[in-house]
Protein backbone atom coordinates (compact mmCIF):
# COMPACT_ATOMS: atom_id res chain seq x y z
CA UNK A 1 0.00 0.00 0.00
CA UNK A 2 2.64 2.50 1.05
CA UNK A 3 4.91 1.54 -1.83
CA UNK A 4 2.10 2.24 -4.26
CA UNK A 5 1.54 5.64 -2.72
CA UNK A 6 5.17 6.57 -2.93
CA UNK A 7 5.21 5.70 -6.58
CA UNK A 8 2.32 8.09 -7.18
CA UNK A 9 4.04 10.89 -5.27
CA UNK A 10 6.96 11.37 -7.62
CA UNK A 11 5.07 10.90 -10.86
CA UNK A 12 4.52 14.56 -11.73
CA UNK A 13 5.86 17.86 -10.44
CA UNK A 14 3.51 20.52 -9.09
CA UNK A 15 2.68 23.08 -11.82
CA UNK A 16 4.07 25.89 -9.68
CA UNK A 17 7.35 24.10 -9.06
CA UNK A 18 8.85 25.83 -12.08
CA UNK A 19 8.80 29.12 -10.15
CA UNK A 20 9.72 27.66 -6.76
CA UNK A 21 13.07 26.83 -5.21
CA UNK A 22 11.86 23.35 -4.40
CA UNK A 23 15.05 22.46 -2.57
CA UNK A 24 14.00 24.92 0.14
CA UNK A 25 10.54 23.42 0.58
CA UNK A 26 8.77 22.73 2.91
CA UNK A 27 8.60 26.41 3.77
CA UNK A 28 8.68 27.80 7.31
CA UNK A 29 5.07 29.03 7.41
CA UNK A 30 2.83 27.39 10.01
CA UNK A 31 0.08 24.96 9.04
CA UNK A 32 -2.95 27.00 7.96
CA UNK A 33 -1.04 30.24 7.43
CA UNK A 34 -2.49 32.42 4.68
CA UNK A 35 0.91 33.50 3.35
CA UNK A 36 1.28 30.23 1.46
CA UNK A 37 -2.02 30.84 -0.31
CA UNK A 38 -1.04 34.43 -1.06
CA UNK A 39 2.29 33.22 -2.43
CA UNK A 40 0.50 30.71 -4.62
CA UNK A 41 -1.70 33.53 -5.97
CA UNK A 42 1.37 35.70 -6.65
CA UNK A 43 2.98 32.88 -8.64
CA UNK A 44 -0.22 32.29 -10.63
CA UNK A 45 -0.49 36.04 -11.29
CA UNK A 46 3.14 36.19 -12.48
CA UNK A 47 2.42 33.38 -14.93
CA UNK A 48 -0.81 35.00 -16.11
CA UNK A 49 0.73 38.44 -16.61
CA UNK A 50 2.96 36.99 -19.37
CA UNK A 51 5.78 39.37 -18.48
CA UNK A 52 9.13 37.72 -19.36
CA UNK A 53 10.42 36.06 -16.20
CA UNK A 54 13.85 37.63 -16.64
CA UNK A 55 12.24 41.04 -16.22
CA UNK A 56 10.51 40.32 -12.92
CA UNK A 57 12.18 40.80 -9.56
CA UNK A 58 10.79 40.22 -6.11
CA UNK A 59 11.95 42.20 -3.10
CA UNK A 60 10.83 41.56 0.44
CA UNK A 61 11.53 42.80 3.92
CA UNK A 62 11.83 40.97 7.21
CA UNK A 63 9.07 38.87 8.65
CA UNK A 64 7.07 35.80 7.78
CA UNK A 65 5.97 37.30 4.46
CA UNK A 66 9.54 38.40 3.80
CA UNK A 67 10.43 34.76 3.27
CA UNK A 68 8.55 34.77 -0.05
CA UNK A 69 11.56 36.20 -1.86
CA UNK A 70 13.62 33.26 -0.69
CA UNK A 71 11.28 30.67 -2.12
CA UNK A 72 10.70 32.10 -5.59
CA UNK A 73 12.94 31.11 -8.47
CA UNK A 74 13.31 34.61 -9.91
CA UNK A 75 15.65 37.49 -9.24
CA UNK A 76 14.86 38.24 -5.63
CA UNK A 77 16.29 40.00 -2.61
CA UNK A 78 15.54 39.76 1.09
CA UNK A 79 16.31 43.22 2.45
CA UNK A 80 16.71 44.59 5.95
CA UNK A 81 13.70 45.38 8.10
CA UNK A 82 11.33 47.84 6.46
CA UNK A 83 13.67 48.65 3.59
CA UNK A 84 12.04 46.61 0.85
CA UNK A 85 10.58 49.66 -0.92
CA UNK A 86 13.83 51.71 -1.03
CA UNK A 87 15.67 48.70 -2.48
CA UNK A 88 12.88 48.11 -5.00
CA UNK A 89 12.91 51.80 -5.95
CA UNK A 90 16.59 51.58 -6.79
CA UNK A 91 16.03 48.40 -8.74
CA UNK A 92 13.21 49.95 -10.74
CA UNK A 93 15.15 53.15 -11.54
CA UNK A 94 18.20 51.18 -12.61
CA UNK A 95 16.18 48.88 -14.87
CA UNK A 96 12.99 50.72 -15.83
CA UNK A 97 11.78 47.99 -18.22
CA UNK A 98 11.58 45.48 -15.40
CA UNK A 99 8.66 44.76 -13.16
CA UNK A 100 9.35 44.86 -9.43
CA UNK A 101 7.13 43.17 -6.87
CA UNK A 102 7.46 44.03 -3.20
CA UNK A 103 6.00 41.46 -0.82
CA UNK A 104 5.95 42.34 2.79
CA UNK A 105 3.96 41.98 5.95
CA UNK A 106 2.02 44.69 7.70
CA UNK A 107 4.65 45.24 10.38
CA UNK A 108 7.53 45.50 7.94
CA UNK A 109 5.79 47.58 5.31
CA UNK A 110 3.79 50.01 7.41
CA UNK A 111 5.43 50.14 10.82
CA UNK A 112 9.19 50.37 10.35
CA UNK A 113 8.89 50.98 6.62
CA UNK A 114 5.94 53.35 6.87
CA UNK A 115 7.73 56.44 5.61
CA UNK A 116 9.20 54.63 2.63
CA UNK A 117 5.73 53.40 1.75
CA UNK A 118 4.23 56.89 1.97
CA UNK A 119 6.90 58.48 -0.19
CA UNK A 120 6.98 55.71 -2.79
CA UNK A 121 3.21 56.16 -3.18
CA UNK A 122 3.58 59.95 -3.35
CA UNK A 123 6.22 59.74 -6.06
CA UNK A 124 4.19 57.05 -7.81
CA UNK A 125 7.12 54.75 -8.43
CA UNK A 126 6.14 51.85 -10.63
CA UNK A 127 6.07 49.07 -8.02
CA UNK A 128 3.59 46.35 -7.17
CA UNK A 129 3.33 46.21 -3.39
CA UNK A 130 1.66 43.16 -1.89
CA UNK A 131 1.00 43.43 1.81
CA UNK A 132 0.01 40.28 3.68
CA UNK A 133 -1.80 41.62 6.71
CA UNK A 134 -2.01 39.15 9.59
CA UNK A 135 -2.71 41.79 12.28
CA UNK A 136 0.43 41.18 14.35
CA UNK A 137 4.18 40.60 14.18
CA UNK A 138 3.96 36.87 13.60
CA UNK A 139 7.62 35.87 13.32
CA UNK A 140 8.86 37.55 16.47
CA UNK A 141 6.16 36.09 18.69
CA UNK A 142 2.92 37.92 18.02
CA UNK A 143 3.54 41.46 19.21
CA UNK A 144 1.13 44.33 18.59
CA UNK A 145 1.42 45.84 15.11
CA UNK A 146 -0.05 48.99 13.54
CA UNK A 147 -2.77 46.78 12.07
CA UNK A 148 -3.87 45.08 15.30
CA UNK A 149 -7.60 45.77 15.73
CA UNK A 150 -8.72 47.81 18.75
CA UNK A 151 -9.13 45.49 21.74
CA UNK A 152 -7.44 42.44 20.19
CA UNK A 153 -5.00 40.57 22.39
CA UNK A 154 -1.36 40.14 21.43
CA UNK A 155 1.81 39.35 23.39
CA UNK A 156 2.46 43.02 24.09
CA UNK A 157 -1.18 43.92 24.67
CA UNK A 158 -2.38 41.05 26.88
CA UNK A 159 -5.62 42.73 27.90
CA UNK A 160 -6.37 44.13 24.46
CA UNK A 161 -4.82 46.61 22.08
CA UNK A 162 -5.51 50.17 23.24
CA UNK A 163 -4.70 51.70 19.84
CA UNK A 164 -6.68 52.33 16.70
CA UNK A 165 -5.22 50.49 13.69
CA UNK A 166 -4.27 51.87 10.31
CA UNK A 167 -6.57 51.51 7.36
CA UNK A 168 -3.83 50.55 4.89
CA UNK A 169 -5.95 50.97 1.78
CA UNK A 170 -7.05 54.48 2.78
CA UNK A 171 -3.45 55.38 3.57
CA UNK A 172 -2.21 54.13 0.21
CA UNK A 173 -4.98 55.92 -1.68
CA UNK A 174 -4.43 59.16 0.23
CA UNK A 175 -0.71 59.04 -0.55
CA UNK A 176 -1.42 58.70 -4.25
CA UNK A 177 -1.38 55.01 -5.12
CA UNK A 178 -2.99 54.38 -8.50
CA UNK A 179 -4.27 50.89 -7.75
CA UNK A 180 -5.59 49.81 -4.35
CA UNK A 181 -7.32 46.53 -3.60
CA UNK A 182 -7.99 44.38 -0.56
CA UNK A 183 -8.98 40.70 -0.42
CA UNK A 184 -8.94 37.94 2.14
CA UNK A 185 -6.73 34.89 1.67
CA UNK A 186 -9.75 32.87 0.59
CA UNK A 187 -10.72 35.14 -2.34
CA UNK A 188 -8.09 33.45 -4.46
CA UNK A 189 -9.56 34.04 -7.91
CA UNK A 190 -10.23 37.75 -7.34
CA UNK A 191 -6.89 38.13 -5.59
CA UNK A 192 -5.04 36.60 -8.54
CA UNK A 193 -6.84 38.92 -10.96
CA UNK A 194 -6.02 41.90 -8.73
CA UNK A 195 -2.32 41.04 -8.54
CA UNK A 196 -2.19 40.58 -12.33
CA UNK A 197 -3.85 43.97 -12.85
CA UNK A 198 -1.53 45.56 -10.30
CA UNK A 199 1.52 44.17 -12.09
CA UNK A 200 0.38 45.56 -15.40
CA UNK A 201 -0.55 48.94 -13.96
CA UNK A 202 2.11 51.63 -14.43
CA UNK A 203 2.51 53.32 -11.07
CA UNK A 204 2.34 52.44 -7.41
CA UNK A 205 -0.15 49.62 -6.96
CA UNK A 206 -1.07 48.21 -3.57
CA UNK A 207 -2.83 44.92 -2.79
CA UNK A 208 -3.65 44.07 0.81
CA UNK A 209 -4.40 40.47 1.77
CA UNK A 210 -6.17 39.70 5.05
CA UNK A 211 -4.43 36.54 6.09
CA UNK A 212 -5.03 34.20 9.02
CA UNK A 213 -2.27 33.82 11.59
CA UNK A 214 -3.57 30.96 13.75
CA UNK A 215 -0.34 30.50 15.69
CA UNK A 216 0.07 34.02 17.04
CA UNK A 217 -3.00 36.15 16.43
CA UNK A 218 -5.67 33.47 16.39
CA UNK A 219 -4.39 31.60 19.42
CA UNK A 220 -4.45 34.69 21.64
CA UNK A 221 -7.90 35.69 20.40
CA UNK A 222 -9.57 32.33 20.86
CA UNK A 223 -9.71 31.34 17.20
CA UNK A 224 -6.98 28.78 17.34
CA UNK A 225 -8.11 26.68 14.38
CA UNK A 226 -6.81 27.97 11.03
CA UNK A 227 -9.98 26.89 9.27
CA UNK A 228 -12.16 28.83 11.71
CA UNK A 229 -9.95 31.88 11.37
CA UNK A 230 -9.99 31.92 7.58
CA UNK A 231 -13.76 31.42 7.67
CA UNK A 232 -14.09 34.22 10.23
CA UNK A 233 -12.49 36.65 7.77
CA UNK A 234 -14.25 35.29 4.72
CA UNK A 235 -17.77 35.17 6.19
CA UNK A 236 -17.58 38.76 7.38
CA UNK A 237 -16.13 40.08 4.13
CA UNK A 238 -18.36 42.22 1.96
CA UNK A 239 -17.25 43.04 -1.58
CA UNK A 240 -17.71 46.69 -2.46
CA UNK A 241 -15.72 47.76 -5.48
CA UNK A 242 -14.83 51.36 -6.31
CA UNK A 243 -15.85 52.87 -2.98
CA UNK A 244 -13.83 55.47 -1.12
CA UNK A 245 -11.21 53.47 0.83
CA UNK A 246 -11.88 55.75 3.83
CA UNK A 247 -15.24 54.02 4.16
CA UNK A 248 -13.65 50.58 3.82
CA UNK A 249 -12.70 50.24 7.47
CA UNK A 250 -12.20 46.82 8.95
CA UNK A 251 -15.02 46.28 11.43
CA UNK A 252 -14.66 42.75 12.77
CA UNK A 253 -18.11 42.78 14.35
CA UNK A 254 -20.06 43.47 11.21
CA UNK A 255 -18.20 43.42 7.97
CA UNK A 256 -14.75 43.54 6.53
CA UNK A 257 -15.00 45.58 3.36
CA UNK A 258 -12.93 44.10 0.54
CA UNK A 259 -12.73 44.89 -3.14
CA UNK A 260 -10.87 46.95 -5.69
CA UNK A 261 -11.08 50.50 -4.38
CA UNK A 262 -8.87 52.64 -6.60
CA UNK A 263 -7.86 52.25 -10.23
CA UNK A 264 -6.72 55.59 -11.67
CA UNK A 265 -3.99 57.02 -13.87
CA UNK A 266 -1.23 59.40 -12.77
CA UNK A 267 2.21 60.11 -14.27
CA UNK A 268 4.77 57.83 -12.69
CA UNK A 269 8.00 59.03 -11.16
CA UNK A 270 10.03 58.00 -14.19
CA UNK A 271 7.68 59.85 -16.57
CA UNK A 272 7.93 63.04 -14.55
CA UNK A 273 11.69 62.67 -14.13
CA UNK A 274 12.24 62.33 -17.85
CA UNK A 275 9.95 65.28 -18.53
CA UNK A 276 11.94 67.56 -16.23
CA UNK A 277 15.26 66.28 -17.51
CA UNK A 278 14.39 67.05 -21.13
CA UNK A 279 14.08 70.72 -20.08
CA UNK A 280 11.01 71.21 -22.22
CA UNK A 281 8.95 72.72 -19.45
CA UNK A 282 8.87 76.46 -18.68
CA UNK A 283 9.41 78.03 -15.32
CA UNK A 284 7.38 77.15 -12.28
CA UNK A 285 4.48 77.68 -11.55
CA UNK A 286 3.15 77.97 -15.08
CA UNK A 287 5.28 75.10 -16.43
CA UNK A 288 4.15 75.90 -19.95
CA UNK A 289 5.88 73.74 -22.51
CA UNK A 290 8.59 75.66 -24.33
CA UNK A 291 8.53 75.95 -28.10
CA UNK A 292 10.62 73.04 -29.31
CA UNK A 293 14.00 74.07 -30.69
CA UNK A 294 13.75 73.63 -34.46
CA UNK A 295 16.08 71.23 -36.19
CA UNK A 296 19.06 72.69 -38.01
CA UNK A 297 17.98 71.41 -41.41
CA UNK A 298 14.54 73.00 -41.18
CA UNK A 299 15.80 76.35 -39.95
CA UNK A 300 18.11 76.71 -42.81
Amino acid sequence: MSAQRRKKKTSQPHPQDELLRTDRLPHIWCPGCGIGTAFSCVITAIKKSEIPLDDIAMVSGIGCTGRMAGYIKLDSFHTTHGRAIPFATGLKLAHPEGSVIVTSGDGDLLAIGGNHFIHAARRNIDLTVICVNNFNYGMTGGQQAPSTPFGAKTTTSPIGSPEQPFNFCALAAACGAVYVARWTALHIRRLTVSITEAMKKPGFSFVEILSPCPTSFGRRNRIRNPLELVQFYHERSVIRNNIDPQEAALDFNNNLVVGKFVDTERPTFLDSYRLINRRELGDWPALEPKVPIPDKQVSG
Partner: protein
Amino acid sequence: MKYWRDPLDLGAIQVSKGRVIIIEGRCKGCEFCVTYCPRNVIQMSKAFNIKGYHFPEVVDESMCVNCHFCESLCPEFAIFSVAIPEKN
Protein backbone atom coordinates in the same frame (compact mmCIF):
# COMPACT_ATOMS: atom_id res chain seq x y z
CA MET B 1 -25.35 18.25 -9.26
CA LYS B 2 -29.05 19.05 -8.82
CA TYR B 3 -30.71 21.40 -11.25
CA TRP B 4 -33.95 23.29 -10.77
CA ARG B 5 -34.84 22.06 -14.24
CA ASP B 6 -32.72 20.22 -16.74
CA PRO B 7 -30.91 22.64 -19.05
CA LEU B 8 -32.01 22.19 -22.65
CA ASP B 9 -28.47 21.57 -23.84
CA LEU B 10 -27.51 19.30 -20.97
CA GLY B 11 -26.54 16.51 -23.33
CA ALA B 12 -24.35 18.78 -25.45
CA ILE B 13 -22.26 20.21 -22.62
CA GLN B 14 -18.99 18.46 -21.90
CA VAL B 15 -17.97 18.68 -18.26
CA SER B 16 -14.21 18.73 -17.92
CA LYS B 17 -12.71 15.90 -15.93
CA GLY B 18 -9.70 16.09 -13.74
CA ARG B 19 -7.42 13.98 -11.65
CA VAL B 20 -6.19 15.16 -8.25
CA ILE B 21 -2.55 14.52 -7.41
CA ILE B 22 -1.35 14.92 -3.83
CA ILE B 23 2.29 15.35 -2.85
CA GLU B 24 1.95 13.84 0.60
CA GLY B 25 5.36 14.77 1.94
CA ARG B 26 4.66 18.49 1.62
CA CYS B 27 1.27 18.53 3.36
CA LYS B 28 0.94 20.15 6.80
CA GLY B 29 -2.65 19.06 7.31
CA CYS B 30 -4.44 22.44 7.32
CA GLU B 31 -7.56 20.88 5.69
CA PHE B 32 -8.20 23.89 3.42
CA CYS B 33 -8.49 21.69 0.33
CA VAL B 34 -10.88 19.24 1.99
CA THR B 35 -13.12 22.01 3.35
CA TYR B 36 -13.28 24.14 0.22
CA CYS B 37 -13.32 21.52 -2.55
CA PRO B 38 -16.57 22.41 -4.36
CA ARG B 39 -17.18 18.79 -5.36
CA ASN B 40 -15.99 16.99 -2.20
CA VAL B 41 -13.42 14.96 -4.07
CA ILE B 42 -11.01 14.63 -1.16
CA GLN B 43 -11.07 13.78 2.53
CA MET B 44 -8.46 13.63 5.28
CA SER B 45 -6.77 10.27 5.54
CA LYS B 46 -5.98 8.51 8.78
CA ALA B 47 -2.38 7.93 7.77
CA PHE B 48 0.49 10.22 8.66
CA ASN B 49 3.13 11.62 6.37
CA ILE B 50 6.82 11.84 7.15
CA LYS B 51 6.33 15.06 9.16
CA GLY B 52 3.54 13.56 11.25
CA TYR B 53 0.58 15.34 9.68
CA HIS B 54 -2.56 13.79 8.26
CA PHE B 55 -2.75 14.41 4.54
CA PRO B 56 -5.76 14.39 2.19
CA GLU B 57 -6.72 11.44 0.04
CA VAL B 58 -8.98 11.15 -2.97
CA VAL B 59 -12.47 9.78 -2.24
CA ASP B 60 -14.17 9.91 -5.60
CA GLU B 61 -12.00 10.86 -8.51
CA SER B 62 -14.90 10.88 -10.97
CA MET B 63 -16.33 13.97 -9.21
CA CYS B 64 -13.31 16.17 -10.00
CA VAL B 65 -14.01 18.81 -12.67
CA ASN B 66 -10.43 20.14 -12.78
CA CYS B 67 -11.26 23.58 -11.36
CA HIS B 68 -7.74 23.99 -9.86
CA PHE B 69 -9.21 25.50 -6.68
CA CYS B 70 -7.25 23.17 -4.41
CA GLU B 71 -4.13 23.90 -6.39
CA SER B 72 -4.40 27.67 -5.84
CA LEU B 73 -5.59 27.41 -2.25
CA CYS B 74 -3.01 24.97 -0.92
CA PRO B 75 -0.43 26.96 1.09
CA GLU B 76 2.09 24.12 0.80
CA PHE B 77 2.05 23.46 -2.97
CA ALA B 78 1.08 19.91 -2.11
CA ILE B 79 -2.00 19.30 -4.27
CA PHE B 80 -2.86 19.91 -7.90
CA SER B 81 -5.15 18.64 -10.57
CA VAL B 82 -4.51 17.66 -14.17
CA ALA B 83 -7.05 17.43 -16.97
CA ILE B 84 -8.12 14.04 -18.26
CA PRO B 85 -8.41 14.30 -22.04
CA GLU B 86 -11.95 13.82 -23.30
CA LYS B 87 -12.67 10.69 -25.26
CA ASN B 88 -14.16 11.87 -28.52
